[in-house]
């Protein structure tokens, strides 16, 4: 433990050193900026004020026109819509809907997302402006040296050669921004509004901490949160251990020297691994359903039917157990494949030496195999833990739409993990701000665990060698 503490301390030290370096870095940047402005010739100044004008003056007609047209487009966007979007981002709507007077009210949610969008466009605009200035300065330096400004053909050539990385990354970056970054920023911000529940269009929303108050407070939401969090941790620990033990056991069994046709035996777990997850999960749902085959057989045998996956209290531990089983059925094979690979890396000399010293099979397993496998799979174990903590599929497919009718659960069932609850709240039931706050909590837990792993692994190994 002490070692881990020292590593963490090292991590903090580095972070602190980086923070201390910030003011110096800022000062240096300003110095460079002033030097640049002092040097800049007239045509560069033209570009600083009007994007593309400097390029036009240097005779780079096409490039200059492209810059000018995008400047026009941007200005048009901001004058007609963008400024309103940005103002809307702060107010979240001021006009209430009034059907009598035919006033179409503001939609707070749309205004929030359009505001974020406008900020992104603004950022892109600024970035484009900076490239324009840099480009003009580059041309000015060439002219100072007595060289000719780049022709358009040359510009295209740079784009495919020395600036290839920029050209190649533009499309991925833009698409990730639109479909991944903006939605996430939106959700982070929505956690600090009162959107959702009763506050959806036409009602106007506002910035507030109401969601956090509800989660921390003693309301129904708060008590549900505590119950779900407790089960979520229990689930993550048990299912990770169960999957790991089963997977390792399976790999060891198939690795035994007296097993013939191990490829044949291995095919069965791989079959389970290969079937798309949602099909296996839906299949198991049918298998355990009220009138499914298992209940039918129980009925035939004269026993009482068990309502495995229904909403009342009797189903609680059945459903949880079935969830653990199905999750093990689906994920054990991948752990098996992984540990098989790791087992093949163990030096077999170790076993022979141990056998010579009179160690039996169990001792060999405990002293050689287990430490090695645990050591080699720790990172995987942690990522499995994070994966299981956020294992949405199992209970979504097996018990979707089931809300427990006892114990004051708020839009959740007794098997739901935080992530299922998040889905119930924000996608199925429009409780946006609470859902967003939950996702922030999930993010904090996940990243804390990941940070711990990171500090304890690769990046800090180097440090270890010197200690």
């Amino acid at each position, binding site marked *: 433990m002490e070692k881990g503490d020292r590593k963490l301390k090292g991590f903090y030290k580095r972070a602190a050193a980086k923070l201390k370096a910030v003011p110096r870095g800022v000062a240096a940047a300003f110095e460079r900026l002033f030097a640049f402005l002092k040097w800049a010739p007239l045509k560069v100044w033209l570009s600083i004020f009007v994007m593309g004008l400097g390029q036009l003056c240097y005779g780079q007609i096409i490039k200059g026109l492209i810059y000018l047209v995008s400047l026009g487009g941007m200005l048009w966007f901001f004058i007609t819509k963008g400024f309103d979007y940005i103002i809307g981002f702060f107010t979240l709507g001021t006009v209430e809907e009034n059907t009598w007077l035919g006033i179409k009210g503001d939609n707070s949610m749309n205004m929030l997302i359009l505001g974020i969008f406008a900020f992104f466009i603004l950022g892109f605009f600024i970035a484009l402006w900076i490239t324009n200035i840099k480009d003009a300065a580059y041309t000015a330096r060439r002219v100072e040296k007595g060289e000719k400004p780049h022709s358009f053909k040359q510009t295209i050539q740079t784009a495919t050669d020395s600036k290839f*990385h920029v050209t190649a990354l533009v499309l991925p970056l833009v698409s*990730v921004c639109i479909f991944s970054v903006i939605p996430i920023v939106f959700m982070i911000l929505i956690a600090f509004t009162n959107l959702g529940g009763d506050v959806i269009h036409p009602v106007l929303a506002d910035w507030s901490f109401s969601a956090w108050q509800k989660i921390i407070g003693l309301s129904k939401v708060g008590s549900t949160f505590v119950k779900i969090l407790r089960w979520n941790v229990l689930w993550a620990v048990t299912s990770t251990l169960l999957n790991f033990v089963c997977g390792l056991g399976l790999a060891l069994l198939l690795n035994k020297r007296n097993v013939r046709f191990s490829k044949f035996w291995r095919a069965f777990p791989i079959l389970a691994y290969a079937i798309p997850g949602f099909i296996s999960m839906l299949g198991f749902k049918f298998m355990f359903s009220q009138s499914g085959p298992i209940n*039918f057989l129980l009925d035939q045998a004269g026993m009482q039917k068990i309502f495995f996956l229904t909403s009342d209290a009797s189903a609680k531990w059945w459903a949880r157990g079935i969830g653990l089983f199905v999750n093990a059925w689906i994920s054990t094979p991948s752990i098996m494949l992984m540990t098989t690979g790791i087992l093949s890396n163990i030096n077999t000399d170790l076993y022979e030496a141990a056998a010579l010293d009179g160690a039996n099979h169990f001792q060999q397993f405990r002293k050689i195999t287990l430490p090695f496998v645990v050591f080699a799979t720790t990172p995987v174990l942690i990522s499995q833990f994070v994966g299981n903590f956020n294992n949405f599929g199992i209970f979504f497919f097996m018990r979707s739409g089931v809300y427990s009718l006892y114990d004051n659960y708020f839009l959740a069932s007794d098997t739901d993990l935080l992530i299922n609850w998040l889905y119930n709240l924000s996608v199925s039931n429009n409780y946006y701000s609470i859902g967003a706050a939950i996702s922030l909590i999930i993010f904090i837990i996940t990243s804390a665990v990941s940070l711990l792993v990171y500090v304890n692994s690769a990046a800090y190994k180097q440090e270890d060698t010197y200690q």
Partner: protein
Amino acid sequence: MSNKRRHRSPKQIAGRITDNFFTYLFLLIISAVFLFPCLWLILSSFSKSGSIYDFRGFFPTEYSLQTFISLFTDDVNGLYPYKTWFLNTLFVAGMSCIFGTVLVILTGYVMSRFRFKGRNGVKKLTLVLGMFPGFMGMTAIYIIMTQLGLVDNLWSLIFLYAGTAPMGYLVQKGYFDTIPNTIFDAARIDGATNLQIFTKITLPLSKPMIVYTALTTFAWPWSDVLLPKLLLKDRMNWTVAVGLFNMPETHFARFAAGSVFIAVPIVILYFCLVKHIVNGLTAGAVKG
């Protein structure tokens, strides 16, 4: 060990026999546990009656090919148009595969080969983004798609799958990292531009990676339920996964047949690619 036969005492032989017995017993049990649900689903798909209530136990009482035929010919008054769903799925998965592969390969290549300002920023950003719960932004995505007028349109899914694919560039980057730099340097000396290096050298060298990427970007839309469920409202626009998700118990045989039909290609793919997948899994083990 094999060249000299050791003499074994009867006790050792007995030990070996019990060891063998238990090993194979466990193997049989485990294989049964994994095989049984699959077998159950496959046999159910050949059942004569559709509803799970007529099964009387695990397996159907009578077998026929009827379910597979009606899966494609009879859509029960437009409730279960499997053929349309299948074509939709094929279209979405195919298109996402093409665009997604291009974007991921480009990202992975650039992140592996080039050192530029902001590279570390991009790396950290994707790391942080990856820690948010996957569908956290689903509400926002719905609003964005409404603004773009793409709700209930298959292209919305294609944009999403292909557009977010670059987030998973690390595997591809890892592959490009293994190509020795000398090859690229030699090409640079011969005067090739970076674009030429990418198209004429990198792409031919990375065929296995392209195949792997194409398969993974294809398999994801093929079996995703959440996004299509969110964005596709009209039954005729659904993908197979959403359709199967909404099948009731009275159409259990139809569910089984539909599942078997789309699971078989994926299962075959996995068996062909098991080596690649294991490599991917253990690579993750080293990097964490």
